[in-house]
């Protein structure tokens, strides 16, 4: 903090004193993003500056951060899509299997009857 900028804040117009406080560090990185990388939209506003590289290589837990509704909606859509894909495949399979089992039983009965019919005249 050797060359940190200092700012003055007058706490109240009538106060006979002033408090000198250091300027807050920038909350956004000054490093340029890689080509083709969009800045994250609607982040939770972490006060710790970080590089774009760190953002793509680790996940950290937030300490009481606020969440945005759009993120919740996107997450809900994602989970709904996952289970929709799964249940669609499972239900389609179960329905087809029931049809096939019924067909299999019908065919087996028909074949057994036909064999029985064919066997009778010989005996």
């Amino acid at each position, binding site marked *: 903090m050797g060359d940190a900028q200092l700012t003055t804040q007058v706490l109240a117009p009538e106060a006979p004193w002033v408090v000198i406080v250091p300027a807050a560090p920038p909350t956004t990185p000054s490093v340029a993003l890689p080509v083709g990388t*969009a800045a994250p939209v609607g*982040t939770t506003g972490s006060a710790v500056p970080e590089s774009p590289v760190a953002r793509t290589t*680790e996940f950290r837990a937030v300490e009481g951060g606020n*969440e945005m509704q759009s993120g919740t909606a*996107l997450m809900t859509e994602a989970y709904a*899509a996952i289970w929709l894909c*799964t249940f669609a495949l*499972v239900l389609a*399979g179960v329905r087809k299997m029931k049809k096939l089992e019924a067909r*299999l039983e019908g065919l087996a009965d028909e074949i057994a009857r036909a064999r029985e019919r064919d066997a009778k005249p010989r005996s």
Partner: protein
Amino acid sequence: MTLSKRASETPFLGLLAATAASLVLALQVIFLKAPTEATMGIVQKIFYFHVPAAYGMYLGAFVCFLGSAAYLARGTAGSDALARAGAEVAVTMGLMVLITGPLWAAKAWGRYWTWDPRLTTSLLSVLVYVAYVVLRAFTGDGEAERKFAAALGVLGAANIPIIHYAVKKWGGQHPQVISNGGGGLRHPDMKLALTLGFLTFTLLALALVWQRMRLHLLVGRVDALEQEAVELGLAGDG
């Protein structure tokens, strides 16, 4: 349901029960225990099923590869059914990956899609397995079709290592949190959530492969009986 049939289904029902239990536990940990990610917020929770779904796609592709190679070597109906089931699971899991990834990216990158190497190779791989499934669905079930599909199943698996190492080889902006020197998950509950996600999707992929394989074997048995019925002079009423 006969007693023997019920007994033969017991392992499958056990697998389904384990999958359901793992799913409930995973959802509980993801939404009630794992903390919100510092930069992205709640949308990062997509990660706990997005990555395991990608792993499930790899599993499906591997099963398809094994079944296809076995079919080319031995030509059994079981190996063909296994390959077909693997391809269907790869498509299902691949669709999950391709839907959930862009939903996460909409928030994290500000856009749904970019022609990043890993995204592009994943899309190509899913299209290979879609081609396999469409081929099997619309071209009949003859020996030539089965062999052609088996060749596709073997060659299609070649894309899987390319997807996996795409980020390492060609860069791109796809996150590398848990591989290739990424920083990892910085909270034990995040790690637990991801572990349960992997467990759930492993069980789910196995259950789906099992169900689809049984279905294809059943189709084969019905076809064989229909053929027998025709030979006996019974009317083929469909």
